[in-house]
């Protein structure tokens, strides 16, 4: 069962607090919950915050009215739990430095003075997504890069590119501004692209 497999038919089971339906929801979303919690409260209590959110969700499910999508509703709850916990414990939110990149696509390096390509984008020998998915080493490189992305970048990537949440909802869930979320997403995507560029060139991460 994948994340997308939560169907309307499951919703009735969830509203009735059916154990199997709820366990399926946990299987699909728990990792992403931790990613969101981690980006707000840090790694040490992310698991705890995610579990607290699940308790609230379980108790609130009978009253879920469907005014937003189930996903958005779930992520809003976990985001709210994390923010409350942050306030309660007077924790400082991990702040990400947004300095100028020294190299790569986000720097001035690949461009000439008029802003046109000096070093053109790397040629990819393999471009088909199916062929790229077959590359075990590349898969490992991407997994590793995802694991070391700054936590707020990772959360923005998860919410937008995996969960297809709107930028507006992501701002609310993570409590960041619209321009911030756009910068975070762009940095995450460019970092991943540069990893693939490097792999295409060298066969290594």
């Amino acid at each position: 069962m994948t994340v997308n497999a939560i169907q309307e038919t499951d919703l009735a089971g969830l509203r009735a607090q059916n154990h199997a339906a709820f366990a399926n929801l946990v299987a699909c979303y728990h990792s992403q919950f931790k990613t969101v919690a981690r980006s707000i409260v840090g790694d040490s209590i992310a698991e705890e915050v995610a579990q607290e959110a699940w308790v609230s969700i379980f108790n609130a499910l009978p009253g879920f009215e469907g005014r937003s999508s189930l996903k958005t509703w779930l992520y809003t709850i976990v985001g709210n739990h994390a923010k409350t916990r942050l306030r309660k414990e007077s924790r400082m939110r991990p702040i990400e430095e947004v300095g100028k990149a020294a190299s790569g696509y986000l720097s001035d390096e690949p461009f000439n003075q008029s802003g046109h390509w000096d070093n053109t984008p790397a040629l990819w020998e393999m471009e088909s997504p199916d062929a790229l998915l077959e590359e075990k080493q590349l898969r490992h490189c991407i997994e590793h890069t995802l694991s070391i992305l700054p936590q707020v970048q990772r959360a923005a990537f998860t919410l937008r590119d995996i969960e297809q949440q709107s930028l507006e909802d992501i701002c609310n869930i993570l409590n960041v501004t619209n321009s911030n979320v756009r910068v975070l997403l762009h940095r995450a995507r460019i970092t991943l692209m540069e990893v693939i560029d490097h792999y295409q060139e060298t066969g290594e991460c």
Partner: protein
Amino acid sequence: MLNCKSLVDQASDFTDKSLPWHRVLSIKFHLLMCVHCRRFMRHFRTTINLSAHIAKENEQLSDTEVSEVMDSIKQLDSEQK
């Protein structure tokens, strides 16, 4: 006239459809003219799809992990009541 660096800087906004129409138009016009930026955008989109696919596959919990989380949730719920 939009240059390649501006296109790279706006690639996410363009992909997420969060740009005003006149900027979308200038990006599309630039893409018609610039083979390197077309390649950049193609790779950029493939990166997003590929990375999201791989991340999604890894995020599914195993049955054992689900049981562990469910036990913790139940315990937490009974403590709160």
